[in-house]
């Protein structure tokens, strides 16, 4: 491909962005004096700031490019990732889990495991999480370099190193604060940069109704073809969607992944922290307008020979990730192309920054201070955080080169999430809501859940077992296998945790006050009208979710 054809104005827009975020890092450094400033952005953010950062930490360009491409491949089923695969979990986090997280004044999710269970459970999760953030950060970096190389024509190595150094510069200066600032900027750039692609696509097709009229029925439905895996392009049944994606993967990611939860910890009070994921849920429900609509428009254009539109191919294979960049190229004139590329760049960098800032917190608090130097001073922890950022960036570059050898990035991303997050959700759920779960139960449950998920991944990958024995269906896809593997890992962790807890020593209820439901005094919302409570907004979000699912049924 000849690239997106960047002109002088496009380059100017991109350079302005880079200069701006580095300058912002310098500006914020003045306000980053303590470890709480660096790791928790001072714990003084409003629910809007924390909420938008919460969503943006998840909204990487890999997700934008990958999901637009997946829509081309699977149709409306991709909307499940944004609706049932996110919203219930976000509401649950805000209403039921955040009080335990926030009130225990922890710095990280593994920190909660230490308070609720013991050191070994914390360290197990911290190691798994630190490895996961580095892998995901490296894959983000690799994907960014790949896009810049393919669509903009930049040198692969140069684009990766320049972006990595820019992220290192602003995260080292002010940690989570600058990560969150750039995530919010990224949120606006994504909407301003990509909104017109969807709008112009709809204009070209002739309206939203016309879009749905011109795609094949199997691509247009959300649930009505989920009774039989053979009737939809994703080859998954409603049970796989509900149990695997809607329950385990979604709750595992949104309620336990420290990368996103860390943003809520930065809120100024409990009400703001609880509102954080609920505010984010409304924006999450709107993202399919950018992603799904562009995928569907591309699908229609590709089927119309007169349109002259076709996705790129690599070695005979369709490159689905080229959907969004090709539509930018089709519709955007000079200046707007630069804005579109900057939106993708910003999303990649914010995704990487999110992973690195979560990595430096977990390393500093859950590994360095827990195992190496328990008496470290505030100043030393701040210094360790900064050094860890640099080390994390270099390790990310290393994993990016490693990721280059992977045949399929999305496959490995999903696999990594199902190894770490899916079983952790069982541990957290039991830990927060069942008082008699023991430290040994949590540790062995978590270990067996992570181990079984990894083994199932290898078993399917190397065909030691028939995938149908996991997916409970003769029709199946990689995505269906991911959903079901997560479900089994969760179930194994859940079962082993309960079983071991029945036979091992429990902690006294007095030690668990504030950490487990039933032992924690319910705090009444201080004279706030019901229409301003997280419960009210959570209910509104659920109603919107139900309406969307019925409308696109």
């Amino acid at each position, binding site marked *: 491909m000849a690239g997106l054809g960047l002109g002088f104005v496009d380059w100017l*827009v991109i350079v302005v962005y880079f200069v701006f975020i580095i300058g912002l890092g310098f500006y914020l450094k003045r306000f980053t004096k303590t470890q709480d400033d660096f790791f928790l952005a001072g714990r003084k953010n409003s629910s809007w700031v924390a909420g938008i950062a919460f969503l943006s930490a998840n909204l990487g360009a890999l997700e934008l490019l990958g999901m637009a491409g997946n829509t081309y491949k699977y149709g409306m089923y991709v909307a499940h990732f944004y609706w049932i695969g996110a919203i219930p979990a976000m509401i649950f986090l805000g209403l039921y889990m955040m009080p335990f997280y926030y009130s225990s004044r922890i710095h990280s999710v593994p920190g909660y495991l230490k308070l609720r269970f013991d050191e070994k459970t914390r360290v197990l999760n911290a190691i798994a999480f630190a490895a996961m953030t580095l892998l995901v950060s490296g894959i983000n970096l690799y994907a960014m370099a790949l896009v810049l190389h393919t669509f903009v024509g930049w040198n692969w190595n140069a684009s990766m190193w320049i972006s990595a150094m820019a992220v290192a510069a602003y995260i080292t200066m002010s940690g989570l604060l600058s990560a969150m600032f750039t995530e919010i900027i990224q949120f606006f750039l994504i909407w301003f940069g990509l909104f017109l692609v969807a709008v112009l696509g709809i204009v070209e097709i002739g309206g939203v109704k016309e879009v749905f009229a011109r795609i094949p029925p199997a691509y247009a439905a959300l649930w009505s073809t989920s009774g039989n895996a053979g009737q939809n392009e994703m080859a998954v049944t409603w049970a796989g969607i509900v149990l695997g994606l809607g329950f385990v993967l979604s709750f595992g990611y949104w309620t336990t992944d420290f990368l996103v939860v860390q943003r809520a910890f930065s809120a100024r009070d409990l009400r703001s922290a609880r509102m954080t994921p609920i505010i984010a849920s409304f924006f999450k429900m709107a993202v399919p307008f950018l992603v799904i609509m562009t995928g569907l428009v591309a699908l229609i254009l590709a089927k119309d020979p007169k349109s002259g539109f076709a996705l790129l191919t690599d070695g005979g294979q369709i490159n689905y990730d080229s959907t969004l960049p090709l539509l930018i190229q089709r519709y955007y004139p000079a200046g707007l192309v630069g804005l579109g590329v900057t939106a993708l760049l910003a999303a990649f960098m914010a995704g990487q920054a999110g992973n690195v800032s979560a990595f430096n917190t977990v390393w500093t608090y859950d590994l360095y201070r827990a195992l190496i130097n328990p008496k470290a001073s505030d100043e030393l922890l701040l210094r360790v955080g900064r050094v860890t950022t640099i080390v994390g960036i270099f390790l990310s570059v290393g994993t990016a080169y490693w990721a280059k050898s992977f045949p399929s990035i999305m496959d490995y991303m999903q696999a990594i999430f199902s190894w770490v997050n899916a079983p952790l959700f069982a541990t957290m759920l039991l830990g927060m809501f069942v008082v008699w779960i023991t430290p040994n139960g949590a540790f062995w449950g978590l270990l067996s859940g992570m181990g079984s998920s990894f083994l199932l991944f290898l078993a399917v990958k190397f065909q030691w077992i028939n995938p149908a024995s996991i997916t409970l269906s003769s029709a199946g896809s990689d995505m269906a296998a991911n959903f079901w593997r997560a479900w089994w890992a969760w179930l194994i962790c859940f079962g082993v945790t309960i079983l071991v807890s029945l036979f091992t020593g429990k902690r006294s209820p007095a030690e668990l006050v504030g950490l487990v439901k039933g032992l924690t005094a319910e705090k009444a919302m201080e004279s706030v009208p019901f229409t301003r409570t997280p419960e009210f907004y959570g209910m509104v979000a659920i109603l919107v979710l139900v309406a969307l699912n019925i409308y696109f049924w």
Partner: protein
Amino acid sequence: MKSIWFFVGLLLAIMGLIITASAIHSLFNPPAKPKIYSHLHPDLWWGIVMLAFGILFALLNRRNVA
């Protein structure tokens, strides 16, 4: 410290200004290979929207926050 919303406004205003200026230039010097719907001048309208939104956001949030 300035609020994050101020910086969002500032960046959008700068980018909006660049895109608007580029669009006005294109009005008088049309590109050799115009894009689909270039007759609708999406760059001009979008640049103005970004500029207006950015200025408004920056002005409304220009005061320092604690």
